[in-house]
């Protein structure tokens, strides 16, 4: 499975029908192997959610559960605190995403369309800080949040989530704006439209795939965020789904993997649904956005 073979598979329609069929078979074999690699771990985890905690550890193991038992799902979904953790996560995700898109689209537009002194340096100022490991900014940021009096507040989480999402959003959206032909907005300016109007009514609609890509990735980051919520909040009032997943691991003497996996699967489902609805746009967004 190396790149040369795939390169061979690349040229469909230019060789003999026999070659074409062979390369098509190779392509399908490759895609199936890759999908097994991508999906197998997930399927294994999903199957485990129907097992009992002890069943997981039994030897020899069985692939299928002894019986399809939904009690883990029932147990988590009927937990009296689950709605609160869920709503916390949803709220933080929505606010973060809206703020990220609104704040970064201006910068993205400027970087895409305008030439100004310090252009590159300012872009680096936005992109480079994103290169540090999230876990490592926790301690310095903790001190800042305490000084701002924001410990144990949604604001602390919204701010930190948003600033970590902005760099990627600026990067993708400025690529998308750049890929839009200049003539379109120039004709709008000729008609006397203001910059804000142009950006909102002309650029943004065309850039929708890029915006959706940004939204999906921001949602993903906020939805799964763990180090910040672990460090900046102590109150169970503010707890999110990933934090609860983490606390779950320690409540039992032996890890209750089925329950943990069930929780993990439940938290992943909303993201996957959102992604599958918009996956076409996400792809287009990356195609346009990643040119830089």
């Amino acid at each position, binding site marked *: 499975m190396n790149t040369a073979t795939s390169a061979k598979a690349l040229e469909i329609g230019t060789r003999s029908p026999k070659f074409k069929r062979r390369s098509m078979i190779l392509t399908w074999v490759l895609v199936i192997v890759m999908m097994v690699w991508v999906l197998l771990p997930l399927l294994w985890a999903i199957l485990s959610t129907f097992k009992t905690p002890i069943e997981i550890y*039994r*030897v020899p193991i069985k692939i299928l559960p002894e019986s399809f038992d939904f009690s883990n799902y029932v147990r988590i979904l009927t937990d009296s605190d689950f709605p609160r953790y869920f709503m916390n996560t949803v709220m933080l995700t929505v606010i973060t995403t809206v703020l990220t898109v609104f704040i970064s689209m201006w910068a993205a537009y400027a970087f895409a369309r305008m030439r100004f002194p310090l252009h590159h340096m300012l872009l680096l100022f936005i992109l480079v800080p994103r290169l540090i490991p999230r876990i490592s900014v926790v301690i310095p940021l903790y001190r800042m949040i*305490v000084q*701002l009096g924001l*410990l144990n507040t949604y604001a602390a989480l919204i701010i930190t989530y948003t600033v970590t999402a902005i760099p990627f959003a600026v990067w993708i959206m400025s690529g998308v704006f750049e890929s839009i032909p200049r003539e379109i907005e120039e004709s709008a300016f000729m008609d006397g439209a203001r910059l804000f109007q142009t950006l909102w*009514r002309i650029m943004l609609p065309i850039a929708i795939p890029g915006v959706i890509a940004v939204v999906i990735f921001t949602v993903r980051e906020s939805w799964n965020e763990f180090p910040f919520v672990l*460090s900046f909040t*102590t*109150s169970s009032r503010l707890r999110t789904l990933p934090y609860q997943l983490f*606390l779950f691991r320690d409540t039992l003497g032996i890890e209750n993997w089925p329950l943990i996996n069930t929780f993990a699967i439940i938290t992943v489902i909303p993201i996957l649904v959102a992604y599958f609805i918009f996956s076409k746009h996400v792809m287009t967004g990356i195609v346009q956005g990643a040119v830089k």
Partner: protein
Amino acid sequence: MLNMRKILIWSLIASFAMTGSVVFATGGSEAEAGEDEPVELTVWFGRENFIPDDNFASFRAKYDNIIVNVDVIPLEQALTEASTALSAGKGPDILQTDSRRIPPLVQANLLQEIEAQLALWQKEDPASYNNISSSGWDHATHDGKRYGVAFSAGPFNHVYRLDWLEAAGLDAPTTWEELLDVARALNTDDHIGYSIRGANSTVWFSSHYMAMGGKYDENDVIQLDSEAGIYALGFYQTLVREGLVSPDVLAWGSGDMRAAFITGRAAQAPIGTNIFPSIQEELEYGVQWAAVPPLKREGAEDEYRYASLGWPHVVTSASEDLYEASLVLRYLAEHDNAMSIALRYQPTTIMSVWDDPAYIDVQPWARDFAEPLRNMTRTPPNLYITDMDEIILDALGEVMSDMNADPAEVAARYQLVLNDLF
């Protein structure tokens, strides 16, 4: 169209406002508490499981002038979180920690001793005060002063498959050598002789070491380079060398170790009392499995110690309302509250629970353990506990992964590193 523009302008203003709030905001302006206002206390628990079933309902009913906020901060996180929060004046009034980590907290001036409040407690409510075992006080003591109380303290015990031993005509082991013999006899294709975790936590090792007669020096540093230390390292190496433990042992955590015993894949294991209810769900106590305190080492019976870990609630330097804080401790010391935790989690230091028929009914082993649990020794705390743990784990990892390593040589080498900490 006009709306659009409005939205846009507002969103830009919002962007700036948010930016401004981050860059320019100054300290929070919380309303200062007036004189007649109720007292507010924040209590951190290290695990959800340490919170009584009552969850302060009766406390709130009794003291309507005290507001209690209950939060769960995982034990692993508590030290870092508490220190940053306390140094900013926003910390909890009471926090729960692993008793081995009391010295760093005291050293950093994050705790305050509450001897005066405890004396008042003894005077006002002697029954509740005297109901706490010595171990409960011991785990919250540093340099002779008490900073709180431990309501939960538990040991690791030796658990074994009674039915398998009987079927094989073996006696229950009383020494570590006998344990090895039993492990050899019961080590088959279907199950291992002894279940231990890898070199990734020191507390099980310390329990073994202390039972083997291991000592700590005046700085509370483990003495690997001693008869007991070398014996303990050699014991772990023998288990791996002879294949008496899982071939995967180095990757095993506590869950793997316990699960192996619970699912009938191990004949013996060192398991905490808190896990006994889970064992009981699968196996019957006194019939299929049995438990005793850790075994003794031949020739070192007199130095034997039954190691315990404790999770005390300690009062922080931020707390101004010490009397109210002591009321929270008294609440946690109540028989019913302590029992609700003991029934599902760690053993309690509230002695009346151990005689409660309702408790013994649910935990049949309680009767056998009530006496030994009164004679536990606190696993020594240390200012440099993490560094010490890492060195011990390095030594343990070496003997468990390299069968040519000489335990005596390893012990001597790492002892020098340990002594260098001080």
